[in-house]
């Protein structure tokens, strides 16, 4: 469903990403790994419309999306998270999920001045979906707390729930396990697998936690110094000499 072809990104004299290609099929979890500074997040930023790539193509269901504005890309169903949590911290947990459904709602300036039956019905539907996801990620009791006051692991889960209420087709998670303890990480990989299995969402994952990556990925792409180094199934990557060298240095 997503195809990245020879993607390059140049910042002045620095070639941060050089001829990277990868593809994501329906119903698949694909990881991007690589040492720090390899250009993983830059690839993400190009895919989600934050950067306009200097070269290459990004196709989503056959449609070229490279260089399109971020909100257009997210409306196609490609939704991302960031390395750091970006919730609306001064809004409540449930409001975070409601506002994410804004574009599915009727947003006339005057609607809401008068609560018409239609307005209420849609609002109720949004609320139902929000509570479904709160239940799903185990944050129901927190619904009316301010999002900024949640524990870090809870904020991470809320971010994923917020992506899911927008009904994405492809979810791009940038280091979702960063800063989580081992128990939280196990919950997270269960959640990510369930997104694929139960909600038919494909996932692109950037992650440093190797047990998470090896455990849930269908395929892995390794990038080193902006260039593609290897790609394959977790087993192939585990036994790939180039990958071992890049991570451990030459013996």
């Amino acid at each position, binding site marked *: 469903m997503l195809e990245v072809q020879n993607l390059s990104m140049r910042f002045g004299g620095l070639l941060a990403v050089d001829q990277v290609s990868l593809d994501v099929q329906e119903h698949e979890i694909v990881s991007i790994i690589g040492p720090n500074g390899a250009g993983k997040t830059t690839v993400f930023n190009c895919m*989600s419309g934050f950067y306009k790539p200097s070269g290459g193509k990004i196709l989503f269901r056959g449609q070229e999306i490279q260089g399109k504005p*971020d*909100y257009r890309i*997210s*409306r196609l169903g490609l*939704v*991302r998270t960031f390395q*750091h949590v*970006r919730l*609306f*911290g*001064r*809004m409540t947990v449930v*409001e975070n999920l*409601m*506002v*994410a459904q*804004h*574009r599915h*709602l*009727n*947003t006339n*300036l005057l*609607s*809401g*001045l008068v609560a018409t039956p239609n*307005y209420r019905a849609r*609002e109720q539907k949004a609320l139902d979906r929000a509570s479904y996801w709160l239940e799903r990620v185990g944050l129901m009791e927190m619904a009316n707390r301010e999002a900024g006051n949640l524990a870090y692991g809870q904020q991470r889960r809320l971010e994923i729930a*917020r992506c899911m209420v*927008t009904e994405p087709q492809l979810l791009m998670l940038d280091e979702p396990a960063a800063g989580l303890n081992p128990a939280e990480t196990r919950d997270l990989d269960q959640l990510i697998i369930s997104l694929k299995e139960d909600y038919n969402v494909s996932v692109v994952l950037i992650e440093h936690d190797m047990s998470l990556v090896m455990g849930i990925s269908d395929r892995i792409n390794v990038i080193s110094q902006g260039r593609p180094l290897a790609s394959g199934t977790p087993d192939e990557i585990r036994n790939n000499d180039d990958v071992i060298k890049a991570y451990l240095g030459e013996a």
Partner: protein
Amino acid sequence: MQDLLYFGQQLINGLTIGSTYALIAIGYTMVYGIIGMINFAHGEIYMIGAYTALITITGLATLGVTWLPVILLIALICAMIVSSSMGWAVERVAYRPVRGRHRLIPLISAIGMSIFLQNYVHLAQGSRNIGFPALIEGGFQFGSSGNFQMSISWIQIVIFVTTFVCMTALSLYISRSRIGRACRAVSQDLGMANLLGIDTNRIISATFVIGAALAAVAGLLLGMYYGSVDPLFGFIAGLKAFTAAVLGGIGSIPGAMLGGLILGIAESMTSGYLSGEYKDVVSFGLLILILLFKPTGLLGKPEVEKI
């Protein structure tokens, strides 16, 4: 006793003027809260609201409409529509093209827009001040002591009630409605709101429209209260409302309400106990003090650099 009554009178006057400052200040604070710029043309939007109301009232009088509530309602609606369209257009023409540039650029654009609108009204309506009919006259007096008589006029009561209704409606709208919810999200993280598919341009336009509509309400009320309008009508009021917004904490809606009231009371106390000529000195002195000692204002939150 007489002193107390005198103080009460100053308080009433201060609350009257302060609540209208608060209405105008909402426009400054909402726009700042969302896109971090000061809309210096907001005072002119308010002035245009007052002119529109005046023109509507005159027009209705020539048509022979005499029932006061109808006149006021139509004048209010016309003023709100014209000011809101103006607020929308100003954002579209002068601010959106320069959004995201260096901070000074939208600021200069705003000052330019303010000068343009002022001079446009100069040309269209003349530079002399025009009498605003006192539609709501009279009032009642209570608690006289010695030779001092405490009084409250109907127009003051109308100003309180209207402001109170507008503020309550706005607070509910922001906290409950979909657009209000989206406004809060956009003000916290515009980039993220964009990514979640919220049409942030529309939300930004909405804040300009809401702020301008409230300024138009203030325009009608203050036009009647002062009894005249001129093209510079919006300049000082705009500065005062801006001061009120900063005083309360720019970006905070309750802050704008509080700031407006404090500023109004400070001014009327100065007029009452010192001299009317000192009231601007006091209000802008207050602004300087706030900026020196509490730059985030009374209810403002310290700005965290967005990444």
